[in-house]
């Protein structure tokens, strides 16, 4: 299936319904404060078991795109970022809406979102193939070094503490080890607990850490009022002149979004902050930022949607997830016996093309749905949380139980809910944990395969130029904080 075929395939009634449903659900959770796109993806994953792999990726990618975009509504009308990445939109979207232009604020954000998303799609299509082609020569040593580098990068690029990032990543790696060792077939590190024979499965872990713990955190704020600006359609469709006026800002912010999206562990929130700051520093009216600036809305929204394409590039080409949503997409592909990375292009081009086609089509659907339905979506902000949150927890329980029909997975979900809350409270970054949990077993398997080919010698890691280069990047990344400290002294 070529990319064009994938677009045609998306027009079939089932696939179109899945895509539209995914975008709608994504926007809906993006609009509802407290329910995040990551949570939706984690909760949906178990239900993709019964789907074929193409339909599963269509659904998940559509939700991802919808979720990133939906935060705009709550940010603009309620001054609450429905998604963390909409935080910069609140600064100017809400003031502009308060001044009597809610439609204009939503329209600008929506237009910037589709431009950012479309430009990131161009990058996705142009860069992923060549990168995968270059990576196809990788053997187990290079793959091991690549995974090592990805783990090091995601730890160092997560904002804040490198030490805590490293600890979180290694905790993830270590917690992925109990259960059946795939290389030897032995059951290991289970402490004779029967429930651990299958290890900690990704789904209960992710659902617990990101969905259950988020609901618990949201419960703290259950009494938060819903003071909001009433949405209207006036100005929701911006003119061609607006696209010309804001064109350079949209393009620049999209490029920032794509670049930051490619970097592992940084994410859409940082992209929107960087794009916002850049737009402010280059603006002729920087004093307007924070008071309802159109430039600010455009920059933040273009950048956060552009990360959606950027994050998919290393995922598809190298099999490296850049963040939570990608880690879940990676898990979805693995559930369907697909291994993202350079070989995916050769073995399952239909999946690659389905992801690429869905990315663009979902952005177009998102633009249309947000344009037509933003007034309706805005009503979702008013769903009483007291009734919504318990229902979401029931979905968490079903989501954790369904894949293996093991009640122990519900308890594992609960335990990881507490672990997630504890790590977040102690200010450990969670992205390195998840990526460590996903990549750790892969890295171990690659290393053991590599060692079998070299009769136990680690020398090939230093003798093979690509493996050496990637290892050097990983080591330098890990030692960088130490080197910086020494230089300062």
């Amino acid at each position, binding site marked *: 299936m070529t990319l064009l075929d994938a677009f045609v395939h998306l027009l079939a009634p089932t696939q179109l319904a899945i895509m539209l449903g995914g975008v709608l659900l994504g926007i809906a959770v993006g609009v509802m404060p407290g329910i995040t796109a990551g949570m939706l993806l984690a909760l949906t994953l178990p239900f993709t078991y019964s789907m074929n792999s193409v339909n599963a990726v269509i659904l998940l990618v559509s939700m991802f795109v919808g979720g990133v975009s939906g935060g705009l509504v709550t940010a603009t009308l309620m001054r609450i970022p429905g998604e963390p990445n909409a935080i910069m939109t609140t600064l100017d979207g809400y003031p502009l809406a308060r001044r009597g232009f809610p439609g204009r604020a939503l329209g600008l954000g929506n237009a910037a979102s589709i431009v950012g998303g479309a430009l990131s799609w161009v990058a996705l299509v142009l860069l992923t193939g060549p990168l995968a082609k270059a990576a196809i020569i990788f053997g187990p040593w290079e793959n091991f070094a690549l995974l090592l580098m990805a783990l090091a990068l995601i730890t160092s690029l997560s904002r804040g503490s490198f030490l805590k990032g490293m600890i979180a990543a290694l905790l993830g790696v*270590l917690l992925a080890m109990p259960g059946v060792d795939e290389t030897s077939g032995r059951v290991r590190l289970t402490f004779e607990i029967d429930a651990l024979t299958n290890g900690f499965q990704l789904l209960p872990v992710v659902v617990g850490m990101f969905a259950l713990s988020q609901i618990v955190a949201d*419960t703290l704020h259950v009494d938060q009022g819903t003071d909001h600006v009433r949405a209207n359609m006036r100005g929701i469709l911006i003119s061609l002149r607006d696209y010309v006026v804001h064109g350079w800002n949209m393009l620049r912010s999209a490029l920032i979004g794509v670049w930051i999206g490619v970097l592992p562990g940084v994410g859409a929130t940082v992209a929107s902050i960087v794009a916002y700051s850049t737009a402010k520093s280059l603006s002729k009216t920087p004093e307007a930022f924070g008071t309802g600036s159109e430039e600010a809305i455009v920059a933040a929204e273009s950048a956060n949607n552009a990360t959606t394409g950027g994050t998919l590039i290393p995922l598809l080409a190298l099999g490296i997830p850049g963040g939570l949503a990608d880690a879940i997409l990676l898990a979805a592909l693995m559930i369907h016996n697909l291994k993202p990375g350079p070989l995916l292009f050769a073995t399952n081009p239909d999946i690659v093309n389905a992801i690429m086609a869905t990315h663009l089509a979902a952005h177009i659907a998102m633009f249309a749905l947000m344009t037509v339905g933003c007034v309706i979506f805005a009503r979702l902000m008013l769903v009483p949380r007291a009734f919504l949150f318990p229902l979401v927890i029931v979905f968490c329980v079903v989501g954790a139980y369904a894949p293996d029909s093991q*009640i122990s997975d519900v308890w594992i979900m609960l335990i990881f809910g507490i672990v997630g809350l504890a790590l977040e409270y102690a200010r450990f970054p969670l992205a390195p944990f998840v990526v460590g949990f996903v990549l750790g077993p892969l890295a171990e398997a690659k290393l053991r395969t590599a060692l079998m080919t070299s009769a136990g010698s680690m020398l090939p890691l230093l003798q093979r130029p690509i493996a050496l280069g990637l290892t050097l990047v990983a080591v330098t990344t890990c030692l960088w904080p130490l080197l910086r400290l020494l230089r300062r002294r």
Partner: protein
Amino acid sequence: MARNLERLTDLVAGGVVLAFAAGMHLAARAEPPALYDPLGSGTAARYVSLVLGALALILLLKASLGLRVAQSQQSLIVGLDGQTDGDYALRPWLAAFVMVATAGYAALLTAGVPFRWSTMLFLFVLGAAMGDRSRRHAAIAAAVAVIGALAIDTVFSRLLLVQLP
């Protein structure tokens, strides 16, 4: 005050991670040697737990000596920082109750209470607890519990053919 709390949190976190790394290291050492692959099933866990333990020690040392420990500024669980953006009070006891109620729900399911009934009870208890404790709210919570439990049960078991607890 906040600085002291942060330090105490780091000390506890460092201690817990160190204990975990030590436990995993001991378990990994007990793994038998490999038969045919050079590493075997315990080696990676041994080295990873060693590095993790060393990092936990650094965290403990820094926190106990009062040195600054940089904190993550990236949040994937939003709203746990205790900041309120409006005139409402945080409800930490309710948040704790959510965990307890969820554990109770899991216990009911483990004990074999049918999904439909345990879900109904769970939705009602939590829905009522999250509201303003008025009769009206309790009545709505009961209605949501009955309709929600029946709908979820039907949709998952009959339409999506998902096996429920």
